[in-house]
């Protein structure tokens, strides 16, 4: 009996089913695409680590997309169950018990999930093909999969189906429970689409979760461990999902004010409609908000990292020798090269750096050996305490970060062991280190002490300063001529170094943005699906509006206005969360080995917000058109 009802429901209302299942497809597709890629890599001899890492990133994006999809599917089932209240109640009148109705919705979810899994499997093969093309292209630095076909194993298919069914059924659990509680009398009096208001318990639990999650951010940023940010984020999202339905109404009213002002009557109706159905508004907006939170988080972190790189620019040498050995070569920068550089009249200072493994106060690390006098002139060091020239004979230089974490100051004795012996040096200078750009490493010591203790004599970098008044081009040309003897060596000036690292950040940012953006795309898909579902829900109402004289374009405006309000809610919520957690993460990272300086990329964030709002309206374009085409008579007759 139940099976037949489910089959009929899915066959006759396939649009509804498709709109519900679509939420799972993107996530399943990404996960399945990763699996195909990884198995293809495993089957290909010599496929490399980079490809595997790419796969892992896509997998993470897939998991995020599945989570966003879960929110969507939950929203779709919530709407669907509310729409079908009368049918469910009729079944209750005919003797169906709560369990049967729960199973009805659950089985429907299982079938939709299975179909979504199948479609996701197909999409996943497409994703994998796209990834393979990307890996084979010049855009991807290493790896080549052109030799092998895509491997779609039974495991991949099973995982796709399991994920599809799992996420759909889990998302449908609460709506199924609600279906099971339908009273038989609801058949007679239900106004379809009315959704119960959130319960008090739910409100309190959600509120506490949000407060705890948000409060954990400054705590983690200032005092606590940084990893706290992760559970804090999850807690905040869960909490928002719980309180969402309660706060969405007033918020939609608020955000809707400008929409109502500009779009007049359709706008005012849109405002009222989004506020009237807070559960749907909240679910749709939060799905979009997750993607936008990720995108703005990535943007904030990226901008903060770039700000830190810019800060380091002043502490990087005017020129330096970039040493890029080919595999197997470890000769370093030749002594003759260093000597000839030192002889160039265009240069004011040349300071070869040697560095090697060492044990500093019991911890393994790398120390850099310098000629203090030459180094002072070639490397623009930002000294916090002491002086570089004091390094000579028994001195040790440490970065601010090391000094802070180890509790050292100028004058602290520190034992340093190198391959040839151990000696206790004294901290003589504390300086700001560079983590991205060429510059001072964590530990500096005098070349004489380093050599005496048997440190690795390989020269790995040579900071240089040009003589005043010599044109930059002439300096570069002179250095380049010297370096021409060894293809592993190139000259790089301050601007080039900066560009190189900013470029690296930009590349990884765009990769992360693309992945976070996928979550945003799923969120936009949510606007499409919930809007389309809501129109089925409101056919009568729309017909009535048409009957009392509303024009088609006004209906369209109204539906688009609703989408705009929901998108704006998502933008505000997601952007706010992204900023908050971006700030937290930037603060946590500020003192790490990849430091950041919290920066708000205002222009980029504004562009993303605007794009999301526009995309939200566009996503509703099709449903809006469908709504405007509803026939007056047909709608009134809809039962």
């Amino acid at each position, binding site marked *: 009996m139940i099976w037949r009802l489910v089959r009929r429901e899915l*066959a*006759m209302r396939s649009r509804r089913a498709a709109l519900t299942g679509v939420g799972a497809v993107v996530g399943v597709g990404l996960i399945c695409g990763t699996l195909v890629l990884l198995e293809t890599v495993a089957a290909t001899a010599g496929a490399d680590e980079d490809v595997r890492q790419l796969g892992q990133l896509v997998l993470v994006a897939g998991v995020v997309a599945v989570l966003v999809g879960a929110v969507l599917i939950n929203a779709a089932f919530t709407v669907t169950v509310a729409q079908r209240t009368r049918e469910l109640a*009729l079944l209750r*009148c*005919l*003797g169906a*018990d*709560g369990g049967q109705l729960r199973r009805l919705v659950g089985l429907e979810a299982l079938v939709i999930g299975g179909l979504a899994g199948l479609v996701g499997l197909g999409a996943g093969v497409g994703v994998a093909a796209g990834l393979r093309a990307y890996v084979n292209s010049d855009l991807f630095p290493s790896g080549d999969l052109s030799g092998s076909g895509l491997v779609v194993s039974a495991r991949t298919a099973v995982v796709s189906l399991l994920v599809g069914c799992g996420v759909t059924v889990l998302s449908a659990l609460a709506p199924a429970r609600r279906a099971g509680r339908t009273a038989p009398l609801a058949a*007679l009096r239900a106004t379809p689409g009315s959704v119960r208001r959130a319960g008090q318990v739910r409100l309190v639990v959600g509120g506490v979760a949000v407060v705890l999650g948000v409060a954990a951010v400054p705590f983690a940023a200032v005092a606590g461990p940084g990893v706290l940010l992760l559970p804090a984020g999850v807690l905040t999202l869960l909490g928002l999902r719980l309180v969402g339905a309660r706060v969405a109404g007033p918020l939609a009213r608020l955000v809707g004010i400008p929409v109502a002002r500009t779009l007049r009557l359709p706008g005012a109706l849109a405002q009222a409609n989004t506020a009237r159905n807070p559960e749907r508004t909240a679910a749709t907006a939060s799905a979009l908000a997750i993607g936008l939170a990720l995108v703005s988080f990535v943007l904030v972190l990226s901008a903060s990292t770039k700000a830190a790189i810019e800060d380091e620019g002043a502490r990087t040498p005017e020129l330096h020798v970039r040493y890029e050995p080919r595999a197997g070569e470890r000769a370093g920068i030749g002594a003759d090269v260093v000597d000839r550089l030192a002889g160039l009249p265009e240069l004011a200072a040349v300071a070869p750096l040697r560095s090697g493994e060492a044990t500093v106060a019991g911890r393994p690390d790398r120390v850099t050996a310098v000629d203090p006098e030459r180094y002072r002139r070639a490397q623009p060091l930002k000294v916090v305490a002491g002086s570089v020239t004091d390094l000579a004979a028994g001195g040790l230089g440490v970065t601010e970060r090391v000094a802070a974490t180890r509790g050292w100051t100028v004058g602290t004795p520190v034992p340093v062991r190198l391959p040839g012996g151990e000696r206790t040096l004294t901290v003589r200078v504390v300086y700001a280190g560079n983590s991205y750009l060429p510059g001072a490493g964590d530990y500096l010591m005098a070349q004489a002490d380093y050599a005496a203790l048997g440190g690795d004599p390989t020269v790995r970098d040579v900071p240089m300063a040009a003589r005043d008044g010599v044109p930059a081009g002439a300096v570069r040309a002179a250095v380049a001529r010297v370096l021409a003897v060894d293809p592993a060596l190139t000259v790089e000036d301050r601007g080039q170094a900066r560009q190189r690292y900013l470029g690296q950040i930009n590349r990884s940012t765009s990769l992360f943005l693309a992945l976070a953006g996928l979550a945003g795309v799923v969120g936009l898909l949510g606007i499409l699906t919930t809007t389309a579902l809501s129109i089925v829900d409101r056919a009568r109402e729309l017909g009535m509006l048409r009957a009392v004289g509303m024009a088609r374009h006004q209906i369209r405006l109204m539906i688009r206005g609703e989408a705009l309000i929901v998108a704006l809610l998502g933008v505000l919520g997601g952007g706010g969360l992204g900023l908050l957690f971006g700030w937290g993460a930037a603060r946590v990272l500020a003192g790490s080995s990849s430091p950041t300086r919290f920066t708000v990329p205002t222009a980029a964030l504004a562009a993303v917000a605007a794009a999301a709002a526009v995309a939200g309206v566009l996503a509703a374009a099709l449903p809006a058109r469908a709504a405007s085409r509803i026939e007056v008579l047909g709608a009134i007759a809809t*039962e």
Partner: protein
Amino acid sequence: MSSHVEVAAVRAVAVTKRFGVGPAMVTALDGVTVAVPAGRFTVVMGASGSGKSTLLHCLAGLDRVDSGVVYLGDVDLTGLSERALTRLRRDRVGFVFQSFNLLPTLTAGENLLLPLRIAGRVPDRAWTDRVVDVVGLRDRLAHRPAELSGGQQQRVAVARALVARPAVVFADEPTGNLDSRAAADVLALLRRCVDEFGQTVVMVTHDPVAAGYADRVLLVADGRVVDEVDAPSVAMIHRRLGGVSS
């Protein structure tokens, strides 16, 4: 009132039902005591808002009463758990509503057998055939509700209510959406169920003509049963209704 002893299919004793709280509270049923005779066609009439539907729901176990007792046969509905009420709906009562009786996704034939399927019972072929013939829908069984007229849909609903052989069929304005011919068909059908199958039927209606098909009419006003008329004529109903509303 009839003098011979009747077997009551459903009985309400001092039933009160209120909706809402505080100043918004409405007393929909105000101490109703009434008996529905078995194997008869009982019609409930009264002004809009007088409590007819509420009475029907309480008698059928669709709604809980605030005080008083409802017996269906010899079962006290007020003492039943939700689970037991569900089983009772499944096995002992049938419903026909004014509209939205049929699941739009199922065919007429599937709708017909839905209560049996829900209960996991095997349909009795002979009985089902007979019901289908009585309602005259044999050639329509494969159609979906959207492809049937309102009158045909209501006849499917009546057939469905009969097919599980319930103790009582409850109908709330089953002809409310129909024109007089379709309405007459449905009423004649209900009448036949009573006459041929000995089915107990309780029907709420606004239509004095519909009351002409009844064995007994209960007149409801302000949540009370104010009059009971056996085998009434249409003219008499008009008179009594006039008396009630004045």
